[in-house]
């Protein structure tokens, strides 16, 4: 009975989210600019929440509390710093600049913008290819998160693959049926819903265990090191590397980066920027603290399950626990849709059209995009069944891969002397090196290369520095090509 109720709520909620997307689709126009960018018409509220909801992924929702449960509440500090502060600064430095440039020249993707600036189809395709490569583990992460969430909620009655398959099916359905407008609408609803529900959950659980003081007291009794800042997993190297790689990585995520082009006015970007730290904190504080407090609660978290559903199941009624998980899964679905949607625009606009078939009709392009999305999501689903790491590990890998793009892009945005060869070297070399590190852990015949050095410092941080050095160094050694045009990135009118 309870199992049926939980599953009913989850499937019902996912269907509801799908319905909202369909309504949004009905009001949208059929142009590519509308499908991918909702005609650049987002106001503050929608932009803020659609960006916010895109960050609401399994990484935040399940990965974060799991890590706080296992290693301590410092994860709140790491995520708050990188997302609330560092990302906000990059929102201005990268996002506003891109918005100004995109508004002048009508760009829709990062690759398109860079390809045009440097007069290079190759660079355009390279940026799109690299982005799609790292998008893959991140989509996979959502499927893993959904699988683990349903295991936790139903106490194993729904197998891991079942949850992963459920979200995959909804992801594909959704993105094929609605475009950016649909995604943005559900993002806004889900952002608000999750924000409210996670606070209700925190209050509910806290009142059951006797308040904040009692929860923290029990946590420290069970794990004394949780009350102390730093130590254990949280070395200086870990905190700095995670914060830097994830924050820079987030700006290069296709679904986030594309949102830099969708604001209606600069005013919209400004307001979102200022509200960002508080909004982020409002979500992270209850979510991660619930994970950390769970360490002092008499709950039994099964192997391979997420901690949050287990805690909710223990202290709140079954319908409420199911509602939170449904909300989280719907939020994950909509972030995955944003990813897949942006991924498909990268694929069709920056790879398929310029490289494979320049004369494809709009109709054909739309079909290529949809088939591409379905294939991508299905492959990620298959990969998610192997569970190559924890949610945080898989997520960090993807973020670091994207982070390696960030410094060359920033260099191109602000330094007129950047050359095409400099960009290609700055993007390609660190990517190849990082891919070697990541794959060496998966492929058995080669020795595994270290991911961190000297107590938690991520090698990706070193590779980020390398990417900047190569971009600047090679640019200084080479001459700008005739096809390049630095004035494309000029934003001042005089």
């Amino acid at each position: 009975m309870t199992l049926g109720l939980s599953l009913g709520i989850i499937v019902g909620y996912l269907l509801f989210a799908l319905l909202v997307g369909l309504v949004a689709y009905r009001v949208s126009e059929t142009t590519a600019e509308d499908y991918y960018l909702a005609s650049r018409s987002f106001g503050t509220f929608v932009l803020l929440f659609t960006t916010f909801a895109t960050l609401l992924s399994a990484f935040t929702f399940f990965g974060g509390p799991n890590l706080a449960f296992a290693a301590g509440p410092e994860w709140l500090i790491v995520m708050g710093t990188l997302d609330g502060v560092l990302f906000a600064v990059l929102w201005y430095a990268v996002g506003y600049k891109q918005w100004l440039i995109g508004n002048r020249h009508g760009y829709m993707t990062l690759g398109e913008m860079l390809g045009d600036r440097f007069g290079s189809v190759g660079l355009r395709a390279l940026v799109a290819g690299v982005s799609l490569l790292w998008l893959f583990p991140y989509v996979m992460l959502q499927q893993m998160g959904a699988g683990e969430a349903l295991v936790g909620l139903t106490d194993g009655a729904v197998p891991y693959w079942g949850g992963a398959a459920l979200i995959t099916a909804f992801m594909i359905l959704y993105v094929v049926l609605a475009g950016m407008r649909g995604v943005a609408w559900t993002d806004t609803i889900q952002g608000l819903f999750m924000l409210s529900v996670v606070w209700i959950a925190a209050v509910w659980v806290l009142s059951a265990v006797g308040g904040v003081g009692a929860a923290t007291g029990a946590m420290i009794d069970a794990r004394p090191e949780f009350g102390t800042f730093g130590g254990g997993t949280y070395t200086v190297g870990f905190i700095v590397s995670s914060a830097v790689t994830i924050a820079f990585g987030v700006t290069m995520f296709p679904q986030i980066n594309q949102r830099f082009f969708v604001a209606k006015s600069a005013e919209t970007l400004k307001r979102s920027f200022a509200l960002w730290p508080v909004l982020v904190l409002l979500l992270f504080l209850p979510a991660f603290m619930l994970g950390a407090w769970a360490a002092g609660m008499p709950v039994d978290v099964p192997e391979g399950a997420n901690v949050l559903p287990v805690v909710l199941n223990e202290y709140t009624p079954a319908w409420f626990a199911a509602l939170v998980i449904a909300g989280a899964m719907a939020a994950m679905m909509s972030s995955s849709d944003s990813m897949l949607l942006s991924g498909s625009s990268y694929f069709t606009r920056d790879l398929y059209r310029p490289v494979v078939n320049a004369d494809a009709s709009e109709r054909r392009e739309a079909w290529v995009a949809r088939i591409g999305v379905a294939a991508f999501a299905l492959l990620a689903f298959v990969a998610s069944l192997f569970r190559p790491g924890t949610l945080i590990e898989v997520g960090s890998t993807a973020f670091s891969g994207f982070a390696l793009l960030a410094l060359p892009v920033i260099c191109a945005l602000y330094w007129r002397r950047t050359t095409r060869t400099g960009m290609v070297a700055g993007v390609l070399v660190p990517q190849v090196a990082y891919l070697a590190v990541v794959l060496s852990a998966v492929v058995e015949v080669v020795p595994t290369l270290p991911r961190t050095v000297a107590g938690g410092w991520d090698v990706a941080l070193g590779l980020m520095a390398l990417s900047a050095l190569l971009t600047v160094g090679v640019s200084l050694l080479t001459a700008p090509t005739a096809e390049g045009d630095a004035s494309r990135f000029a934003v001042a009118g005089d």
Partner: protein
Amino acid sequence: MSRPRRDILWIPTFALLVGFAVPWPLWGVDRVVAGLPVWIWWHVGWLGLCTVLFSLFARSGAWERGMGLRPEADEDRRESPVAGGDRP
């Protein structure tokens, strides 16, 4: 100092805001205040401070000047012709 010169101060301000969002001075501290470890309160307060300073930055005109734009020209900017020449 003139306004554009004073804008330079935003760079170290942002650096400080990012750097100390992590409560480094409380490294190893285990005091609990009002139900939560004291370093969590630091972080909560700090992000509140960020929002205040960020909105100050956005409203003061430094937002536009940082990109080489004139704050008041922001709305007409899109209508103005693209300067800087076309492809060489």
